[in-house]
């Protein structure tokens, strides 16, 4: 089936098998391998990407369901070579060890901070509760997201009224 999917601001036209999952489209067709493929059953969350502005598990979305829709992956976080604050936060606070869960964590963290710029630790834990990390015990992930909340990028900063 012919699909046109907008990924990170660019339209991609491809002819795909109807049964293909979005995670495989991103990795195998577009070579965007930052999105990982883990449990394949909506449990682990390493495949998290945004679909029309909200994070979803891309192992449970068919590519054809993303036709004419907007997808954002971890490759779409940085702007003009500048890391997104959540990426910088994971660097500053040692938010990853093996890195397998990281891209999914980053996508959910960015979404959380867009909704709630100053989340409590509990709210961060709830936001990432569908994503597994076997290295960090989550402590440093929560710290990393907190760091990002405290260091918003200029383009994310709320408008100041004088």
């Amino acid at each position: 089936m012919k699909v046109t999917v907008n990924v990170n601001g660019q339209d991609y036209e491809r002819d795909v098998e109807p049964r293909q999952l979005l995670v495989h489209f991103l990795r195998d067709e577009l070579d965007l391998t930052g999105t990982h493929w883990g449990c394949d059953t909506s449990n682990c969350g390493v495949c998290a990407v945004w679909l029309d502005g909200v994070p979803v598990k891309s192992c449970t979305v068919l590519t054809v369901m993303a036709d004419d829709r907007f997808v954002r992956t971890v490759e779409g976080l940085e702007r003009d070579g500048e890391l997104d604050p959540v990426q910088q936060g994971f660097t500053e606070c040692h938010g990853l060890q093996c890195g397998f869960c990281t891209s999914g964590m980053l996508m959910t963290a960015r979404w959380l901070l867009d909704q709630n710029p100053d989340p409590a630790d509990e709210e961060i834990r709830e936001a990432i509760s569908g994503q597994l990390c076997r290295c960090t015990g989550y402590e440093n992930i929560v710290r990393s997201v907190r760091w990002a909340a405290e260091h918003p990028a200029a383009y994310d900063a709320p408008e100041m009224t004088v």
Partner: protein
Amino acid sequence: MMKLRLAAPDALIDINDVSELSYIRVDGDELLIGALARHAELLASPEVAEHFAILGDAERVIADPLVRNRGTIGGSLCQADPSEDLSAAFAAVRASVVIRSAEGSRTVSAREFHVGPYQTAVADGELLTEIRVPIRPEGGTRSRRWKPGSAYEKVCRRAGDWALAAAGAVLWLDGDTVADVGIGLTAVGAEHFVAAEAEEYLRGRPAGDETFAEAGRIAAEHCRPSADQRGPVDYKRHLAGELTTRALRRAAERARA
């Protein structure tokens, strides 16, 4: 379901673009939920929070935020997993579901919707389109403004897991007397996901710790849990009773609030 090889359809139709099925609203004495409403929307809905806290309680412990962003209410009901939370919650509040086909539409009680594990009343060529939840108790007068109190209590082994056992309760109080009550049980083999004998016991009795404890005992006695990797029968039966009592207590607090 397809990945688990439990379903192998010849054709799959994506209904995500049928936005007419995506709504949550109050219409007269009913809360109406479109089949395509997402779990996240049910959780965030002020109408749901005002009338049926049980649905918010249940949603908060269904899977995780990412799954709730994508999963739909109609999809959960039609999957008809015996451990699925909304089936018991909707059975408790005596919801009905609207099923449509090219020939017309019909309404089925949530308590008659499931005909077995992974099997529902939806036939070939039909689509579940809406869930309707009555805000008034059965037989309750229209002249009075009824305010149900409700709650859902679940025990699972880890965040976002299927229930080991769960119970949902809705209470309509007339002063301190139980005017009407609905009790739903998840994952413990209760017929139609309902604790009918406990409901029968409570109706017309005073709402209080003693009657709620007895209702829990009755609910535990009549359910039929099976042992599996989540736990043994006696533990699940204990939970069914205890969670029923807790859900009733919290529902009463909310009805009085």
